[in-house]
């Protein structure tokens, strides 16, 4: 099959499997946090953004209110708006396609797309990773939710420890350099200081405000923290995929003819 010879499709498929698989941990943690099966599936089908989904159930598990859970999930989803602008600048989807593209605009699909230089490859990478992750993430969420529901006492299985590990795992790839590390430490400290004084869930929002203030008043890399949970181009020796810094007005090497006519990818 010719499509499998596209490097972006191959990267997109492997990132789909890697990311989709950890839907198991989301599904299991979600039902042990107190959400039911369909609430868990609603998050994976409709919200569909790993960090925000973990944030929602993390706040609920800690005894936080629904509104605090919504707040944390929503603030964490802001970066998807930035990704949307990047993908829109590269792919320029038209009509109903842009509404579909929006739903699958997440860390990994954006990174798979922006890591390519050829416009056709950018398109294939985005859709392969986006659709592939959406399907597998939902399948494995269901598997995890059913398994988690059958486990019994979640503490005995260390599932609260699994949640801690999941959040550290999401944070880790974003700690490249001294500055993001400092932001993380300051926000963790603000959280700890706030815990005794405000209702559960709110300390997370306090940290979000602190982080936003740091972002507003300091001048660091403008794409800091915008790294995917699973790096699609991990084999890249620079450790950072090319094209990630580029905006819509950076010139793409469009003089190179695409391997096949545009639009023939899907």
């Amino acid at each position: 099959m010719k499509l499998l010879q596209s490097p972006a499709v191959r990267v997109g498929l492997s990132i789909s499997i890697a990311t989709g698989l950890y839907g198991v941990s989301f599904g299991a943690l979600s039902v042990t946090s107190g959400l039911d099966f369909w609430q868990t599936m609603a998050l994976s089908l409709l919200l569909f953004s790993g960090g925000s989904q973990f944030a929602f159930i993390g706040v609920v598990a800690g005894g936080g209110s629904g509104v605090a859970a919504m707040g944390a999930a929503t603030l964490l989803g802001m970066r998807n708006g930035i990704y949307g602008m990047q993908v829109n600048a590269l792919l320029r989807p038209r009509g109903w396609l842009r509404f579909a593209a929006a739903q699958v605009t997440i860390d990994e699909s954006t990174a798979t797309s922006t890591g390519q230089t050829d416009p056709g490859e950018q398109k294939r990478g985005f859709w392969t990773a986006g659709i592939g992750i959406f399907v597998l993430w939902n399948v494995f969420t269901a598997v995890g939710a059913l398994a988690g529901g059958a486990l019994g006492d979640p503490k005995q299985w260390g599932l609260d420890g699994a949640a801690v590990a999941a959040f550290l795992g999401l944070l880790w790839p974003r700690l490249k350099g001294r500055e993001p590390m400092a932001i993380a430490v300051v926000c963790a400290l603000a959280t700890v200081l706030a815990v005794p004084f405000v209702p559960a869930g709110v300390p997370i929002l306090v940290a979000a405000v602190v982080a936003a203030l740091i972002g507003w008043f300091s001048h660091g890399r403008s794409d800091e923290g915008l790294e995917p949970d699973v790096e699609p181009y991990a084999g890249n020796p620079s450790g950072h995929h090319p094209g990630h810094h580029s905006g819509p007005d950076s010139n793409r090497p469009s003089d190179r003819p695409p391997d096949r006519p545009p639009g023939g990818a899907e």
Partner: protein
Amino acid sequence: MNLWMWLLLACLLAYAWKLLGYLVPASLLRDPRMSRIAGTMTIGLLASLTIVNTAASGQSLTLDARLGALAAAGVALWFRAPFLVVVLAGAGAAAGLRLLGWD
């Protein structure tokens, strides 16, 4: 039912963020401050969620088996383990420490 309402609202707002990126003029992307705040907030929120899930029990701070989970996850990440292995390391450490009587 109340949780359902906030959950669906969160889904709606998440989609609104994503769609916004496709609808706003590209010139906004040239304002580096917006993407910078999106980035620092991502780091801040994930750091906060990590520490809350490690050390908070309602409105009090406790040190229990979850601290072991944090350490185990850190070691796994240091050795570049894949995400699922990191999560299993965290679960294993917490479950193991409880088995040894530290809760």
